[in-house]
Structures are given as structure tokens and as C-alpha cells.
């Protein structure tokens, strides 16, 4: 068995755990509000609003910790994209997930101290953390202080457009969450990656 690699420092594990918990709360309360129905309330509306607001604020502060951590530690380097080889790298990785994994082929981008993420992971994480997260945080804060939102944007309600963007990004992040959790089962054992996020050590295949 290969040597375990310490890839997840304590701050990152805390950040990840808080993010995961808040994500679940935001997802449940967000769905409950979006599909609120007096006949079968998933979560009571006023409670859903309160919990969604609190979880949203925590996630926002947590995001600042992520930015700060990536700025001040070596963790930020894992998110640097190699744009020149991106397409071919993505194809290689997708081929592995779609076919190679069933043929017991070796992963084309094994995890090591210099490379925590494979190209597909890196691409989706960058898109999520540096693309979607800022948008959902900004739109969420705007909805928390709706008096700051421009009233009309091209004849449409500014609040509506903000809420629509917030909901669409929220949906995409929910999809990310489901897929992220599934791919986490593809470590050396189905639970190894989950253990890694507790003890900090990555177990190579």
C-alpha cells in the first residue's frame, strides 16, 4: 500500500465540514421556501427563512476563510488551472470515469502532494468556488437587504431577477453537491475520501 499523503490541513477540514453542513441546511430550507405549500410544509416557512438566512451568512463568512486560506497557504496552488492542456486533460479524465474505471485502468492524474485534484475536479471546483459561490453569496446578501436592489431592470423587477439568479445558481450548486458526494466514493475504498476529510490523510489507490 502506498504511503498516505497529508493533503487536508485542519483549517481546510473545518472549513469543509462547516460548508457541507450549511450547504445541506441551505438546500433543505431553500427547497422548502421555493416549493412552500400550506398543505405539506417541509419546514415551516418562517423557520425556513430564518435558518436559510443564518446558514447563508455563515457560508459567506466561511467563504472568506476559504479565500484567505488559499491566499496564505499552499492550498491555493491546487486551484491553478493549466488552460493550455485543459481540454485534452478533461477528455482524458472523463474517458477514465466513463470507461477506464470499469477496466481497472490506472487513473491518468494520480493524487500526489503537488496535485490534489484531477483536471475535472479542479475545473468544477474552480467554477464552483470562484464562479458560482460569489454569485450566490452576492445575490443572497442582496435578497437579505432587498432595499439595496435596483427596483427595475429592463422592465422586470430587480428583486425577481436577483432571486431567479440565486435560485438557478442554487440549483446548480445542489447538482454539484450530489455529483461531488458520488465522486467522493471513488477513492481507494467507497469511504476512504470521507475519512480523509476527517483525519486529513489521502489514501492512494
Amino acid at each position, binding site marked *: 500500500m502506498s504511503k498516505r499523503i497529508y493533503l487536508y490541513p485542519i483549517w481546510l477540514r473545518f472549513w469543509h465540514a462547516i460548508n457541507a453542513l450549511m450547504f445541506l441546511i441551505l438546500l433543505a430550507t431553500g427547497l422548502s421556501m421555493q416549493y412552500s405549500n400550506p398543505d405539506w410544509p417541509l419546514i415551516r416557512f418562517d423557520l425556513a427563512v430564518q435558518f436559510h438566512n443564518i446558514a447563508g451568512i455563515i457560508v459567506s463568512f466561511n467563504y472568506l476563510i476559504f479565500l484567505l486560506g488559499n491566499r496564505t497557504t499552499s492550498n491555493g496552488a491546487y486551484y491553478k488551472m493549466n488552460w493550455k492542456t485543459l481540454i485534452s486533460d478533461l477528455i482524458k479524465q472523463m474517458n477514465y470515469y466513463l470507461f477506464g474505471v470499469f477496466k481497472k485502468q490506472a487513473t491518468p492524474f494520480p493524487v500526489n502532494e503537488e496535485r490534489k485534484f484531477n483536471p475535472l475536479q479542479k475545473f468544477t471546483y474552480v467554477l464552483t468556488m470562484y464562479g458560482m459561490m460569489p454569485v450566490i453569496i452576492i445575490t443572497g446578501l442582496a435578497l437579505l437587504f432587498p432595499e439595496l436592489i435596483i427596483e427595475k431592470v429592463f422592465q422586470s423587477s430587480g428583486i425577481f431577477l436577483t432571486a431567479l439568479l440565486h435560485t438557478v445558481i442554487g440549483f446548480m450548486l445542489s447538482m454539484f453537491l450530489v*455529483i461531488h458526494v458520488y465522486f467522493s466514493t471513488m477513492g481507494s475504498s467507497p469511504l476512504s475520501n470521507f475519512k480523509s476529510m476527517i483525519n486529513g490523510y489521502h489514501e492512494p489507490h
Partner: protein
Amino acid sequence: MRNIFLLLFFVLFAFVHKQASAQLMVDMESPPSNSEMNQTCFDCHGQKVYSFENDFSGMLERKVMNPNYVLDTGAFYQGVHRHFACIDCHSMDYEVFPHQSELRFEMMYSCIDCHGGDETYAQYNFDQIEAEFFQSVHSSRHDESFNCWMCHDPHAYKAMTHGEFKISEIVKAHNQTCIDCHNDAAQFQRITDSIRPDLAEVHSFIPKYEAHLKSVRCIECHTSQQDTMWVAHNILEKDLAVKKCVECHSSNTMLMASLYKYQSIEARQSGFLNAVILNESYVIGANRNFYFNIISIILFGLAILGIAVHVFFRIKNR
């Protein structure tokens, strides 16, 4: 074929007639009919200070007008009673100055004295408004001195008709009627000895109270809504007010039966459930897009299916 054309003609006529009948019945374009006659009154009552010649001293005196008797002439001529002469409602004896002191006790007309039982004004439902008022706490908790003029100023009344005003303007005007008393200690104590509760404190259970106050009318939650009424007047006991968020924040929002009920039907058929609300606002849980819902379910289903297939082959090739 001829019968079909006739039928279409009558349907069209009925539709046009219905549209026309929803319009304001007051001529707002032509000059006010009695402005010259009214000017005699407005010379004094249109200003904060008035002057008159004292017959005894022979001097010209200037006095401050009682603020309760100062009228905004501009607002009067923009209101629904703009063509009225002052003496249509007030005693002709007011033409004499100084006014006789007993004129202060003249009986005032209420809305129903002129508008009640009159088919001409049927679209405004005055009789139903009166019936609702008698059921409301404004009537049951107070004596007869609580009349229409407690809330509505006949000298400046504007009909906030649907279609001619934006929802936000209607909400602001209708809520101002409530706020004028319920947020003003002096006005509030005209009819009660109790201490006026602070509105923001009473409504502290509503997140973003100020935003709600700008977007929905007080009567949405505080009245028993009747389908035929645009402005419900049956103000309920406070314990019976709507307190459940989901009454509005759901796809079958009660706002569609009250605030938004006269908005165009076409707007509701553009894919968005309750799209009409989007014209002016956004109500969480009430605005849903049918197509977005379908697309999101399909995408989520595909993701789950993809994962299921992947799991299957992973297990099979283990």
C-alpha cells in the same frame, strides 16, 4: 354563420362594455364645474392664514386658520369630487361670514347617503362596503362617530383603480389610509383612550416588515377577503389576521385573490405560475416557472440516472 357573427359581436360588446365600466366615472379632463363658486370658500380655507374686514373696528384682520379646516385645493380638484360645489355637501349658511357657530354641528353626509342603492355606482360596491364596514371592528368597537371620513378624506379622495395605477402606488395609498391613524398617536386617540401600539413592534414577527409594508396592503392580512371586492372593509379582530407566511408565500398565494386579482390573465399564462406578481415584485414561493421546474427535474433525474448507471457498472466490474 350570421348567428356566429352576431354572437361574436355581443361577446365583444359585452367585453368592451365591461372594460369601459371598470373605468373611473369622474371626468378628470375638463375644468372643475364649480371652481369659481368654490373659490369664495378656498380664499380662506385654501390657506393657512386668512383675512377679513372686521365690521366693528373697520380694520382688516389677519388670522391663522384652524389646521383642521385648511384644505389642499390642488388635491380637491384631483379628487373624485372635483366637480362638486362646497355647498353641495355643506350648508348654504356657510356663505355668510362669520359662520354661525351651530354650523359646526351640521350632520355630514356619509358615502352611502349619495352612493347607496344607486346602480350608477354599482361597480364600486358601496352597499357591500357598508355591509362589510358594519361587520368590521371599526364599527363594532366604536360608536357611530366612526364613519367613512375617519379613513377617507372626501376633499381629496382618489379612486386607486386597478389598471390605472401601479400596484406599488395602490399599496402605498391604501396603506397610508391605515397608517394615518394607526401610526399617529393624536389621530388614534380621537376614537380610543388606549395607547397606540407601535406598528413595527406589533409586526416584528414579519421578516422585513418595511419591505412587506411597501409590497402588500394591510388589508391583505387584516380583512376577510371577498371575491367581488377590490378593497375589503371587513377589518377583523387582530387575532384573526393572517399570520401564516404560506398564505401568501405559496403557488396558490392568497394575493392572487386580493391584490393581484385584477391583473391581466395573459400574464399568468406565460410559463410563470403567478407571473403577474413579477410585474412589480417577487414573492418567495409564489413565483415559480413551469418550464424551469421541468428542466430542473429532468437535469436532476439525469444526474441521478447517470450515477445509478455508473454505480451499476462499478459493482459489475468489481
